[in-house]
């Protein structure tokens, strides 16, 4: 077991494309870190560099305090799990799991014992004599995990290990991975493009975009205090609502009405080069049916009326989609996120996704009065993407002073 340190690690290809740029990251011993981002953000390249499958163009990589830039994968003592499982088709499950041990020249009794142990942990014992072709996707995935854990390596590297599984199995395997990592306490770097996996699995999440780290932190922190527009839009499902906001007379003119701002934000906006147009971000759960709000909460928020287009009842709560008039929020980050999601980011004047209590009597088609929490909203500079409401790493809404 060991810590992994990336010190200004970069990767550029001969044709000049830069896949990873100056990545600084310290992964503590036993930590579970998730690399997440849209496709092409450099997360897999970063993982491959840690594994030694890809050369490091510049910077230094240390595993357990030792510089490993020039070491072959086999000398780094790491185990990797692939999206394609990468099981050896000619070997049985037992042989697959024993392969790294055989290469390490362990004696047969030790190999058998370790394989049996790992098989027991992963409930693979009845499948040990089967070939990979006769296993289901979930079983193959477990064998791949088994092959990684038998060796007790310094670190596990996982490259989208659950992406080939169907949705239900993925949820199941997520808990398997999580439990396994907790039990073994091995440093783990896990790459995924799925923000749900990122939120649920890791101790810390690293969000990447265009080869650079956007933000590193525990999942909840990234969710509550996103440093920029990209992180805010990437984390969360359904994602944060973004609205265009114009700065006028010490207020923000938005499609939801005039939003007051506190002293600190005002000071930020007083500079000569301060942006006159902002992007307002509100998460779906920070809306509520105005009928269900008590007076104390009412004072902390604002209300507006809008027609409810669609009501999706989830049982525990209701997703209600509202149409609001007004200009659409636009920024490079938002377009990138939309492209990655494979959809146009909220068409027209803007759709608002809200998560209201299940008790809300809201009906499709009716105009509804909706409250939202001013303490939980974010303001972003559309040109730089910076979160203006963030103060000393915490976000305190627009009213903060």
């Amino acid at each position, binding site marked *: 077991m060991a810590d992994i340190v990336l010190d200004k690690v970069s990767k550029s290809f001969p044709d000049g494309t830069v896949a990873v740029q100056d990545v600084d990251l310290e992964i503590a011993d036993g930590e579970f870190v998730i690399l997440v981002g849209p496709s092409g953000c450099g997360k897999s390249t970063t993982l491959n560099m840690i*594994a*030694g*499958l890809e050369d490091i163009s510049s910077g230094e990589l240390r595993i357990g305090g030792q510089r490993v830039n020039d070491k*072959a*994968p*086999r000398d*780094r003592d*790491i*185990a*990797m799990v*692939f*999206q*394609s499982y*990468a099981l*050896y*088709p*000619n*070997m049985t499950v037992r042989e697959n799991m024993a*392969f*790294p041990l055989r*290469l*390490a020249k362990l004696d047969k009794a030790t190999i058998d014992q370790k394989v049996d142990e790992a098989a027991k942990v992963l409930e693979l014992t009845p499948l040990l004599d089967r*070939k*990979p*072709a*006769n296993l289901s996707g979930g079983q193959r995935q477990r064998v791949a995990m088994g*092959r990684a854990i038998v*060796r007790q390596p310094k670190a596990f*590297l996982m490259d989208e290990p659950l992406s080939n599984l169907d949705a239900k199995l993925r949820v199941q395997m997520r808990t398997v991975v999580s439990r396994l990592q907790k039990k073994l306490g091995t440093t783990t770097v896990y790459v995924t493009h799925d923000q749900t996996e990122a939120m649920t699995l890791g101790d810390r999440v690293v969000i990447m975009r265009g080869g650079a780290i956007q933000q590193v932190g525990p999942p909840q922190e990234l969710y509550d205090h996103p440093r920029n527009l990209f992180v805010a839009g990437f984390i969360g499902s359904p994602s944060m609502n973004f609205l265009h906001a114009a700065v006028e007379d010490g207020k923000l003119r938005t499609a939801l009405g005039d939003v007051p701002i506190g002293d600190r934000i005002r000071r930020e906006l007083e500079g000569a080069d301060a942006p006159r147009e902002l992007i307002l971000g509100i998460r779906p759960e920070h809306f509520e049916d105005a009928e269900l709000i008590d007076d104390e909460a009412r004072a902390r928020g604002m209300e507006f009326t809008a027609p409810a287009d669609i009501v999706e009842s989830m049982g525990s709560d209701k997703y209600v989609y509202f149409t609001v008039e007004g200009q659409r929020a636009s920024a490079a980050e938002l377009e990138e996120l939309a492209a990655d999601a494979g959809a146009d980011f909220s068409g027209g004047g803007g759709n608002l996704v809200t998560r209201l209590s299940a008790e809300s009597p809201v009906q499709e088609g009716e105009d509804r009065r909706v409250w939202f929490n001013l303490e939980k909203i974010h303001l972003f500079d559309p040109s730089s993407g910076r979160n203006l409401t963030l103060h000393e790493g915490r976000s305190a809404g627009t009213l903060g002073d």
Partner: protein
Amino acid sequence: MSRRAPLSENKKAERKLGWLLCAPAALVMVLVTAYPIIYSVWLSLQRFDLRFPDERKFIGLDNYVTVLSNEFWWTAFGVTMLITVVTVAVELALGMGLALVMHRTLVGRGIVRTAALIPYGIVTVVAAFSWRYAWTPGTGYLANLFDGSAPLTERASSLAIIMLAEIWKTTPFMALLLMAGLALVPEDLLKAASTDGATAWQRFTKVMLPVMKPAILVALLFRTLDAFRVFDNIFVLTNGGNETSSVSMLAYNNLIRGLNLGIGSTMSVLIFITVAIIAFVFVKLFGTAAPGSDDGERR
């Protein structure tokens, strides 16, 4: 997997359709191959020499006794086996190397592949003539390299040159078949092996070769059957002199030159049987990985 379970109606219909779809091809095959084979067998059971057409007579297996107790046949058989084993083994090794180079080359991949395939594109007889001239003392550049000796006049060196010509010509073909096999090896598998601690050689022997096994088998089978029927190179280079005849040469000499249809056909039939045995052994030896068998994973 219960293979012996009774077939459902649906399966039966499917099987019937399968036969129907195969039928035209099978019919053509029978017309163009079965007839000559049967006719050869028929001829091989007769005393039939075109120089003495009146003495034609059905003699049963006498021709086979004659051929199989003849030392020329066994010499030719030994020569053919030697050429087959040596050339196929060398071609496999060289072809694998060439395939790996072609597979890995990033720059000028097209040029490398085209260049490697040129020997295979040249007509065998033409290539054989150029080898013959090259080894002809006085005028040949290769012969001059070796002090103007005449290697094609001695048995061992003649055989070596024949094998060299064969290898030079068909290694690209081997490489091409093996390259198709290399493409079957997923990149992730090799990555997994290297993180599992395998050296480059271990990755090759423990991961690549087993995955490529079906492709290697096909390549070996094709080349072995081909090599066993070696003819053109020997015909041009030595014309069978100094006991360098292959069985095909021998059959040709008896059948076409000697006009002895009975003995010639007997030899042809024996060659056919040998080739069939080789194919059978290959398919058995490699078990389920053989082409056309099940997916290779089922037990």
